[in-house]
């Protein structure tokens, strides 16, 4: 096991898999950051924007707070769909390569 594994971890496909995984994870993490800190900085620096009325009394801040939660959830879905389809298939292919050896 220990010896036959070595080439796989040094294979081009494996390295690419790991790089892709972290590029996707890093990008999505960055999007969560932008969403959440965008909202928080708006609270800190531009109260007027959030206090703007969009209904009789409803302020823009209320739907934006809900939006932060919804976007966070959608980003987890994006990751799960990507991983279930793309990532898992590449892992299966690499594991098959291992079994053949």
């Amino acid at each position, binding site marked *: 096991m220990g010896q036959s594994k070595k080439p796989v971890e040094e294979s081009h496909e494996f390295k690419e898999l790991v790089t892709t995984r972290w590029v996707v994870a890093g990008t999505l993490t960055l999007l969560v950051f932008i969403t959440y800190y965008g909202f*928080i900085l708006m609270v800190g620096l531009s109260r007027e924007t959030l206090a703007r009325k969009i209904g009789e009394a409803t302020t823009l801040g209320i739907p934006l*707070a809900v939006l932060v939660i919804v976007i966070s959830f959608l980003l987890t879905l994006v990751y799960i769909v990507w991983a279930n389809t793309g990532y898992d298939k590449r892992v299966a292919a690499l594991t098959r390569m291992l079994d053949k050896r």
Partner: protein
Amino acid sequence: MKTSLGEPTTSGIAFFLVFVCVSLLITYWAARRTRTTTEYYAAARSITAFQNGLALAGDYMSAASFLGIAGLVALSGFDGMIYATGWLVGWPVLLFLVAEPLRNLGKFTFADVVAYRLRQRPIRIAAAIGSILTVLFYTIAQMVGAGNLIKLMFGLSYETAVIIVGVVMLIYVLFGGMIATTWVQIIKACLLLGGVTLLMILTMAQFDFSPGVLYSKVASTYSQASLEPGKLITDPLDAISLGLALMFGLLGLPHILMRFYTVPDAKEARKSVGWATGFIGYFYCIIPLVGFGASVLVGRELIASVDKGGNMAALLLSELLAGTPFLGFVAAVAFATILAVVAGLTLAGASALSHDIYVNVVKGGHATEWEQVKVARIATVIVGLLAIILGIVFKGQNVAFMVGLAFAVACSANFPALLLSITWKKLTTAGATASIVVGAVLATVLIILSPTVWVDVFKNQAAVFPLKNPAIVSMTASFVTAFVVSLVSREKEAEQKFGDQRTRTYLALGAE
């Protein structure tokens, strides 16, 4: 409005007894399936993604999220909503950065991952201390909250409440291990989500099912300012630091991380975060409606007169809308919420003591299955009794900072070592150990010197450290320590094992 809050009502006691009886029956059933360590710590890795999603939500949604956020929205309006968003945004990050590697690399605790290619003794001790500190701070906050809330809800004395919570949850964990704990979390999550949904529907029925009408009513009863950002965030740096603690603290909470070992593989771990994020996100979206509803229908004055933190807002609203039986139901749900969270914490604390310290440090990894389960149960009793004692010792203390402290230690001590052990080849035993120690000490010391403790608890004039949560400093220091110490203390063996670790991390080769 006259309220029966604070008196032991028949319906409250009945709902509570039904919950306890059902959960004890489950514990009995689970106890017969709990003989090995994998069963005791990880529910035989037999939990599905959907079940684990509910259980994660059950572990995370404490009484603070339910009663606390409803109360904050009721008394301060929009600020409560800002606060609620911070509690959710860690979940996607948990999924992207650690959930799957953790599941593939570890066995029972997150220390398994950190110690994968490092020297066992020092790193296990450090990681266990990080876990135990996080668990203890979180437990103190929960137990003191439990004592106060149950006193307010049922009129029981503080000590009785703490002892009841401690003993009941100890029975779950001691006999039923992770299987019983998981099912208690699942039932609690269903009760909480169902109960709050019902409360939200009853509330919205008063406002033609239109949030706009509700907000207009809030604005006309109080002021438009209730729907605008208020005093919560005055210093952006403070807000950023708290945000970091909430976001990355989740990635270092031992009782949450432990749940990923209960599912069969990384794919199920991944899907379970999706479910959990959905449930928790939905909860944080509807709980502000309950809070705003309470401020209009019950009134801020009455809410604050019962409890100045506003914690009773949701309960007063339940009674107003559907009478004493519904109050009893919601109070029992709040009680169940506390029980389930403390049970999860106790199991996590016990696993750090028994699996990390006893089995891997004292016994050098060599202990029979029978001995391991026995030690796990002894550790459970120790942690459970400690929870009860700490709950009583901290009676009457202002422990609001404890949750912030738990998250600060989690993100400064546990998270950097965990992330770097997964991703960075050159991490050494010395580097990881030093980063955990620096993170834990700095987070704790800076919180004591911060306005939350130095001014609010010790009543000093001005704080020594300006930020309310130290995460931005302590977490950064922990990462820097890990880098610097690792680079000056190269460890060949750890680097050699990294290749092997990678195939396990990404391809699940050899994963348990």
